[in-house]
Structure formats: C-alpha cells, structure tokens
C-alpha cells in the first residue's frame, strides 16, 4: 500500500466516524423532540441560582473569575482598591476550554473609569454592580493586553474577604460588627416570611429588614441588598444569613445577612 492509499483510507475512516457521531447527535435530538415541546421557561429559576451563589463563602479572585494566575506568596507593593463593574462588553469567541475573552468596564473608587480585558469562563458572576478588587500596574506600564489595572489575583479567599468587608464598611453597608464575619464564616439558608424596606439606600443598595423562620420561630435581620438580591430572596423564598456571635452561656448570637462577597 503506497502513501496516497494510506491517506485515502485514513480520510475515509475519519469522515465515516464524524458522520456516525453527528448522526448519533441527530438521533438523540429526535428522541428529545419526540417527547414534545419543553415546559415554558420559569423566570424564577434564575433567582434560585442567585441564592445558591450567594450562599458560598468568600473565594479568591481566580476562582470567582476562573482565569488568571493563582494566588501565591508574592507580596504586592500597593493595597488593592475595590472597583465596581459598570458594563460588560465583548464576551465573544469562546474556545474549547470555555474561557471567553471579556472586557470589564469598571468604575474606580475615585470615579475614574478603566477597562480590564481578561479571559473568564462564568458570565453569571459578571454583572453590572458587582465589586472587584483591583490594583494598578506601575506608572507607565501595562500588560500585554494594554490593561493598566489588573484583578487582585494575588489575594487568597481570606484576604479577599477582608478587602471586601472593608469596602462595604467604607460604603456604610455593614456595621462595626462586620469583622466577626471573618472569624468563623458559616452561611445558612432559611425560609423567609417578609421583606420590609426601611427607605435607606446606600451605594445603590437598599436597606431591608428580612424576617425568616428558624426552628419554628421568627427572627429578623437588617442589612443592605442590591435590587436583584432582594428579588432573589423573594422569589426563591430563602435568605442567606449567618450567626455573628457564637452561642455563649446558652444564649443565641446575633444574626446578620450573609454578604454577597463580590
């Protein structure tokens, strides 16, 4: 068998396998379609996903964005600042690994705007209004994509929690007991019975009093939530809270809303 015969045989086998695979997909699609049209979409299912994400602990920026370098022992010379995501342009050209070239338009604490281009693989975490710890490149420098700011990749989960709680306290979204959230963070979900707005709004977040049921008794927490998080609480039927002070001498601790860390 000479070389062109070998090439012809390989081409034939590959083409036949590809066709068989596609044909298998078509059979699977036929079986699915034969079962009838899917049930109409339930818009409230989105809020279940929001509450599930909310119930997570603090995480490193790498895990949250699923891109960039992992945290290491490197010490960054400057402290990170927390920017707010304003717009999410691009998000096109996903590759096989699922990462998507994305541009994040951010508002820095001093009101300046900057755009960070990076690869991310979960758009669910990227939405206008979310916070992102960032730090500047040295003056006059930028990375290969032209970014003059970069996400705080070097922070581990505990450091991210400390930065984000400090930012929320600075905005007036958390009270002085917030540092207790760093001691033994333990989110818990409970069914709610009522959400009451107090009329106070800070940094675009609305202060609410949420009444929830725990072991048959009604408890209340007061805190700030973004509008979408209020809708998530109402339409999922659950709130994520944490007990700030561990029980001492048989007395219950104080409850607080679990922060949406980013």
């Amino acid at each position, binding site marked *: 068998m000479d070389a062109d015969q070998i090439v012809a045989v390989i081409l034939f086998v590959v083409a036949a396998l590809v066709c068989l695979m596609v044909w298998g997909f078509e059979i699977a699609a036929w079986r699915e379609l034969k079962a009838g049209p899917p049930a109409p979409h339930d*818009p409230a299912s989105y809020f279940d996903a929001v509450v599930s994400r909310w119930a997570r602990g603090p995480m490193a920026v790498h895990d949250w964005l699923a891109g960039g370098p992992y945290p290491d022992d490197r010490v960054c010379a400057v402290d990170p600042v927390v920017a707010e995501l304003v717009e999410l*342009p691009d998000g096109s050209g996903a590759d096989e690994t699922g990462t998507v070239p994305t541009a994040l338009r951010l508002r820095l604490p001093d009101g300046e705007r900057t755009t960070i281009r990076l690869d991310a693989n979960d758009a669910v975490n990227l939405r*206008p209004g979310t916070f992102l710890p960032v730090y500047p490149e040295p003056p006059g420098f930028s990375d290969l994509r032209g970014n003059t700011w970069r996400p705080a990749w070097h922070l581990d989960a505990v450091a991210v929690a400390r930065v984000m709680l400090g930012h929320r306290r600075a905005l007036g979204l958390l009270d002085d007991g917030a540092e207790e959230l760093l001691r033994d963070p333990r989110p818990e979900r409970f069914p709610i019975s009522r959400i009451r707005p107090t*009329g106070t709004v800070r940094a675009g977040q609305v202060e609410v009093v949420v009444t929830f049921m725990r072991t048959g008794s009604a408890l209340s927490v007061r805190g700030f939530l973004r509008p979408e998080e209020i*809708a998530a609480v109402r339409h999922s039927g659950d709130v994520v809270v944490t007990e700030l002070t561990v029980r001492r001498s048989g007395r219950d601790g104080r409850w607080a809303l679990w922060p949406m860390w980013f």
Partner: protein
Amino acid sequence: MSIPRDTGEPDAFMKAVNARQLQRVRRRIRVALPLEVLTVVATVAILLLTDAHWSWVLFGAATATSLVGAVLVVSDDDAERPRPGTDLEVAVVVGVEIADWGNAGADDQHRVRVIARPLGSATSELVHGDHRFRAGDGWSARPGTLIGIRRFPTMKHLVRLERCVDPVALVRLREPVRGGSVLEDADVVSLRVTGEPDGDWWPTEVTVRTADRLLLVSECRRLPEELGPLEPGTAVRIVRDQRDPFTRPTRCAILPSGDTA
C-alpha cells in the same frame, strides 16, 4: 425551599416549533442514513467490479460522506413569535439573566433574559422577555428600572419587551401626570416608605429638587427593588404634574432610567 411554581402549558406556537424541528431532524435521518449506506455499498462495489485505482475510489467516498455530514449539521432558524396585539403595560425589571454569552452569532449580538414584575402584580406573577444587544457595546441594564411590555396571551410568563416607548407615556401609565411632557433634570433629596404594603408594593414618597430649586414629590407604590436607583443625591429625570396651570406644581413623576427602558 423554593416556592412551587406553575409555568403553564406550551402554547400552539411552541408546539408548532417543536413539530417543525422534529420534522427537520426526521428528514435528515431518513435522507442521511440511506445515503451513508449507499456510499459504503457503492464504494465496495466499485472496488470489486472495476479497475479504478482504489485510492481515488476511497477519496471519492470520503467526499460523499462529508457532504452527507454537512447536510446533517445545517439547520434553519425558526421564526420569531409575532408581536402580540395586547395592551402596553409597565413592569419593573427585577433581574437580568445572561441567556447566551461567549458565542455572539453572525449578527454579533448577545441575548439577555429580562425578568420583570408588572405593576401591582402578585409575587408569583413574574414575566420575562428577551433583549438583544451588540456584543461590542456591552450591557448595563440594572434591576429597578421601568420597561414597557406586551403579554403573549397564550403564555403565562413570556412577554415582548417594548424598547421604543416614550418614557413619558410609560410613566403616565403608572402615575396620572397632567400638563406638559417636558423632561427635566432633578436630584433626589429624600426617600421615604410611608405605610403598609399592598402585596409586595410599598407606598413611597420621593422628594426631588429641580434646577430652579423647586421641591417636588413623587408618590406611588413601588417594589423595594425600585428604590436602588433613588438614593438621595442621585440625578433623575422627571416630568412635572401641572394639574393647575396657575399654581406652582408640587408633584412630579420620575422617569425610568437604564438602557432597557
């Protein structure tokens, strides 16, 4: 714990789309399978019965198989739902879900699912509709803003989002503003929740200061989600409620903000 939800039954449009897709897949399978078998049989027959060089025969067979495969993967787009003839309603955006991201199509557009609450609706009356935007422009739609919707009468939750609605006409569907329709810039001075709710809708009073230092009040029932864009100090657009042209106005309506309005 999740609230039990009834999303209704698929309507005639969904059933028709399903039937078309099923017919398309069935046709592909019926055409493609015989063509595959025919290609293999013809290849073997030519190899056995003719003197043709077998590398060329196999190459031709590979080409034929690839063509059949190409026929399998080509699909037609289904038509969009026709615009419903129902009345224009006002709804409050409460969530924006990314429906597709990372694979903008040939038109370079992404799609988000805008989730909203029609005015005065009960907790279970969520509606949703699709909003498309250019990938390069991004999206900044924030929950809390007002949008215009038209319900599809055969669907429980699905609505059509009306993007090109005059904001003054939209806000007039909520607050009975009389007089002119001149838009003004103003700053929010204070925000108060003034009583007990009707369902999820709380009576609120928003005081704004206009450029000519006039204090005007906007009173209506709002969702807590709507209060986010009404933080004191925030710039808003208003239209004055000039009930009596000979007295100074004391009331106004606040116009929706955001790019889905």
